[in-house]
C-alpha cells in the first residue's frame, strides 16, 4: 500500500500522471452520471418522444464510424498485400476494439432496458436493419478480439507470467488474412446498414433516401483511417513509447485525401438531391441544416472545416509534408465525420411532419443534451482515450519499427506484395 502511495506521489505531476488523473476525474463524473441514469431512468435526460435518439446515439454512431480504420487498413494490408502498412493496421485494429466497446457502452446507457441487452441476440427480426447491425457489431467485435490478441500478447506481464498463453495469442496473427476477410465483410454490412437504418425511415422524409448507406460507409472509412493516423502521430509526438514512420503515415494521408474527393462527391450529390423540388418535411429539415439551427454545424463543421479544407491540405504536398498541417487536417476530418453523424441523427427528428389531414404541416422540436447525458457521454470518450493511452504505453500499439516476422504472413503465399 505504501509503495503504491509513493508511486502515485512520484508520478502524479508528470504529464502522464496529470493526463491519467484528468481522465480519471472525467470517468468518475461519468460513473456518477451513469449510476444516476440507471437508478432514475431516462427521465432525467432531455430525450423526448419526438427526439428519442440524442447525444448517446451520436457517440455510438461516431465511435463505430471512426473505428472503420480497422477493417479498411486490415483489408489493405492483408488482402491487397500492402504489407508495409501492417504497423498502421495494428494501431487501427486496437482503435477499432476501443471504438466498438465505446459504442456498446453508449448503447447500454441509451436503451431503456439494458438488462435485456442479451435478448437482441436471442430474438431475431431478420427484417430489421437494427438486428443486422447488432449481429454484425457483435460478430465483428469478436473478430476484433482475435485481431488484437497478438497486441495483448505483447504485454510484459503476460509474457513473463504466462509465456505459453502469450505465444498462443501471438500466433493468432497467422490468421490475419482470414480475419481481414471476415472483418471486411461484416464491416461493409454494418457500416452501411447503420446509414440504411435511417434511410428506411419513411416517417422522416429527410432521412428516407437510399444514399444514407453510401454516405455512412464513405464517412466511416475516411474518419476511421484519419483517426488512426492522427492518434499515431499524436502518440509519436507525445511519448517515446510510440515510434512512428512518417513516410508510411504521409502516404496513407495522401490516400485519405483522394478518398475525401470521393466523399465530397457523394455529399455534393446528396446535397443537390436534398434541395431539389419541395417535399414536405424533407425541405424543412434541409433548411434546418443549411440555414437553420444546424447551419453552423453543417457548413463549418461538416463541409468547410470537416471536408474541403482538410482535403486541400492532404492533397497539397507542401502542406501534407508538414506534420502540423497534416495532423490538423486529420483532426478536421474526424471532427467533420462526428458533426455529420450528429446532424444526420438529429435533423430528421427535429422537423416533424404532422399527420393531420390536409396541407402537411411541419412543426419543429428541439433537443439539447442534458448534463447527465454530457457527463456520461464524455466518460465514454474518456474511456476510449484512456484505453488508447494505456495501449500506447504498455502494448506498443503505435510502433512502426515492429520487425517483419511479427507481421509475417505465414499461411499465405500470395503474389508479391505491391509496393505502394
Amino acid at each position, binding site marked *: 500500500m505504501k509503495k503504491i502511495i509513493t508511486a502515485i506521489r512520484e508520478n502524479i505531476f508528470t504529464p502522464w500522471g496529470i493526463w491519467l488523473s484528468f481522465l480519471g476525474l472525467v470517468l468518475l463524473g461519468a460513473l456518477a452520471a451513469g449510476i444516476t441514469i440507471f437508478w*432514475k*431512468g*431516462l*427521465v432525467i*435526460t432531455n*430525450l423526448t*418522444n*419526438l427526439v*428519442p*435518439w440524442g447525444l448517446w446515439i451520436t457517440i455510438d454512431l461516431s465511435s463505430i464510424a471512426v473505428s472503420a480504420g480497422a477493417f479498411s487498413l486490415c483489408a489493405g494490408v492483408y488482402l491487397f498485400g500492402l504489407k508495409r502498412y501492417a504497423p498502421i493496421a495494428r494501431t487501427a485494429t486496437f482503435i477499432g476494439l476501443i471504438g466498438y466497446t465505446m459504442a456498446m457502452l453508449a448503447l447500454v446507457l*441509451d*436503451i*431503456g*432496458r439494458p438488462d*435485456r*441487452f442479451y*435478448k*437482441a441476440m*436471442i*430474438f*431475431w*427480426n431478420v*427484417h*430489421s*436493419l*437494427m*438486428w443486422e447491425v*447488432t449481429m454484425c457489431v457483435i460478430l465483428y467485435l469478436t473478430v476484433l478480439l482475435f485481431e488484437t490478441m497478438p497486441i495483448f500478447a505483447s504485454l510484459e506481464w503476460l509474457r513473463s507470467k504466462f509465456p505459453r498463453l502469450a505465444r498462443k495469442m501471438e500466433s493468432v496473427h497467422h490468421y490475419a488474412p482470414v480475419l481481414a476477410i471476415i472483418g471486411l465483410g461484416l464491416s461493409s454490412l454494418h457500416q452501411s446498414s447503420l446509414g440504411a*437504418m435511417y434511410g*428506411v*425511415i*419513411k*416517417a*422522416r422524409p429527410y432521412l428516407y433516401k437510399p444514399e444514407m448507406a453510401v454516405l455512412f460507409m464513405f464517412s466511416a472509412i475516411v474518419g476511421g483511417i484519419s483517426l488512426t493516423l492522427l492518434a499515431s502521430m499524436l502518440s509519436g509526438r507525445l511519448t517515446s513509447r510510440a515510434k512512428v514512420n512518417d513516410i508510411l503515415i504521409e502516404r496513407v494521408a495522401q490516400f485519405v485525401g483522394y478518398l475525401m474527393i470521393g466523399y465530397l462527391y457523394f455529399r455534393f450529390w446528396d446535397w443537390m438531391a436534398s434541395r431539389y423540388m419541395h417535399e414536405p418535411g424533407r425541405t424543412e429539415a434541409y433548411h434546418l441544416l443549411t440555414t437553420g439551427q444546424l447551419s453552423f454545424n453543417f457548413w463549418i463543421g461538416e463541409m468547410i472545416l470537416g471536408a474541403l479544407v482538410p482535403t486541400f491540405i492532404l492533397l497539397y504536398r507542401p502542406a501534407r509534408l508538414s506534420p502540423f498541417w497534416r495532423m490538423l487536417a486529420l483532426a478536421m476530418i474526424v471532427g467533420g465525420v462526428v458533426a455529420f453523424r450528429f446532424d444526420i441523427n438529429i435533423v430528421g*427528428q427535429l422537423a*416533424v*411532419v404532422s*399527420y*393531420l*389531414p*390536409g396541407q402537411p404541416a411541419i412543426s419543429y422540436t428541439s433537443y439539447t443534451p442534458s448534463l447527465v447525458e454530457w457527463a456520461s457521454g464524455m466518460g465514454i470518450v474518456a474511456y476510449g482515450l484512456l484505453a488508447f493511452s494505456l495501449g500506447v504505453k504498455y502494448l506498443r500499439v503505435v510502433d512502426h519499427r515492429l520487425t517483419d516476422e511479427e507481421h509475417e504472413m505465414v499461411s499465405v503465399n500470395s503474389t508479391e506484395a505491391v509496393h505502394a
Partner: protein
Amino acid sequence: MTENNFNRRDFLKLSAIGVAVAAGTRAITQVEASDAQKGEHQWAMVIDQAKCTGCGYCTLACQAHNDVNPDIQWNKVLDAGEVNGKKVYLARPCMQCEHAPCVEVCPVGASYYRDDGIVMMDYNKCIGCRYCQVACPFDARSFNWEAFTEENPAVPEWGTPEVERRPRGVPEKCAFCYQRIDRGLELGLTPGVDADATPACVVACPTGARMFGGLNDHNSNVSQVLREHISYRLRENLGTGSRVYYLPVDDTVTEG
C-alpha cells in the same frame, strides 16, 4: 483453356439455378406469411369527425382500461382547425398499420402483428431502443421514461385496468383493447356491437363518433359506413395501410 471455360459456364449456370431457387422459396414463404396474417377477423376503427366534439372521454377511458400513465396518451385528441366556423378535432389511436414501420424495424420482434391485424407489443421482449418511435409516422408510441407507480387518476371513474402496467424503459401504444376483444369473443360477444367486446374509447364516446368492427364482415357497421361514406386515412401516401379510417366533416375534403 476450354476446360476452364466449361467450368466457368457450369459455375455460372449453377449459381443462376441457386439464385432462382432461393428467390422462389423466398417468394413462396412470403406469400404464406402474408396469408397467415389474414385471420378470420380484420379489425378496423372508423372515427367520424363531424360527430367528434373533442371532449376527450375516449382518452380518459383508454387511460383507465389500459392503466396508462396520465403523462402518456395512447389516444390523442388533436385540434384540427375549423371547417365552416366549426372547430374540428382529430382523435388519434394507433393506426394498426397493415405494413407497420414499427414492426418492420424492431430488432427483437417485440412489435408484431396478430392474425386479426392488431399491431401488438411484447413488453417483455422489448429492449427499449426506441427505433419504433423514430419510425412511427403517427407519433403513436410513447416511451416510459420513468416508472408509473402512482395511483391512476382515471380509475375508477373511467373504468378499471384490464392489462398489466408497462415497466420503465419500454415504449407503449394502443392495441385496439385486444384484451376486451379476446374476452368478448370467448363469451360469444361481437366486438363493435357488444360494449364488453369493444375498445374502451369506442364505448366511452358520448356522441357515437367512433365505430369498431371487422372489415371481413360485410354487414359490420364499419364495413357499411366505409361503403356509404367518403373516408380517408392519415398519411395515406406512405402506404402503411392504416386500419383507422376517418369520416371528414366536409365531404369535399378527402385528402389524407
